């Protein structure tokens, strides 16, 4: 019976203009040693030129398919959370709200509009003896 009903039920699909793929990389940067341990090595040059740290360690990287107006929560080490909400999807740009929280404290709440393909770096909160850096990529 359920299979019969499913045959006639309309397929639930999400329109392309309401989703956007994001590649998120989580790093901990510090001045302890000179390790450069990145699986996602695409932004090595940028990290070296943008930040004054001597050591960069990748702790995680995820691929997320964000839906518009739907909040996505990603758990991070040291009790941090990254909340992503896709707000706007246009032909060449996406607008997303990114929030870094720990418990009740809001470390960073930002809304960025990214021209695809594009990347933005978020960071600053202390984590694992260093500083948390999040690389947000879309459109690749």
């Amino acid at each position, binding site marked *: 019976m359920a299979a019969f009903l499913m045959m006639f039920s309309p397929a639930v699909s999400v329109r392309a203009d309401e989703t956007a793929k994001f590649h998120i990389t989580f790093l901990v*940067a510090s001045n302890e040693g000179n390790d450069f341990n990145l699986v996602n090595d695409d932004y090595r*040059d*940028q990290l070296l*030129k*943008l*930040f*004054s*740290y001597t050591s960069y360690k990748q702790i995680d990287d995820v691929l997320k398919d964000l839906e518009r107006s739907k909040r996505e929560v990603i758990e991070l080490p040291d009790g941090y959370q990254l909340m992503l909400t896709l707000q706007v999807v246009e032909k060449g740009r996406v*607008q997303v709200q*990114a929030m*870094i929280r720990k418990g009740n*404290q*809001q*470390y*960073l*709440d*930002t*809304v*960025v*509009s*990214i*021209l695809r393909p*594009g*990347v*933005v*770096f*978020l*960071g*600053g*909160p*202390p984590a694992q003896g*260093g*500083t948390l850096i999040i690389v947000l990529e879309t459109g690749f």
Partner: protein
Amino acid sequence: MKNDPLEKKALESYREFLAAEVSRPEIEQQKRLFITKNFPSKPIWTRAAGVMVPAMAVFALFVLFQNGVISVPDFNKAQISDVKPVVSSADAPLVTAEAPSRIEVASPKKLKKIAVKVPPVMVKRATSQVGQPMVYQRKVNEKPITVVWVFTGAGIKS
């Protein structure tokens, strides 16, 4: 001294005496000698040039006019080449200004197609409850990279 007939007569007598003295032949000869010695006369050819040059110039002008080398324009007679032919109104071409049939105005759709340089990342909001957020952009390998950072002690390269 008023005009006295006697005085007048005396003056006349004195003048007559002087004239007689000066007009004596030997005096005349001395006068001539003095003049020729102190004021020599011009040579004959200069005397001739002073007369001949102007005369020859006049003659030359006369010859040039006769041959038509020099001519005096007749100001009373208009030159045909100086006058442009008059175009009658009947022959003149008719010139009309055409009004444009349609003025091209960029429609909103066209305006959208115009290439506009937009930044790759626009940060519309950045707030924090624990520190000062900062938006930072720097060109790395000719590509602008945007960083949204909250300061809690860690630093970005300046």
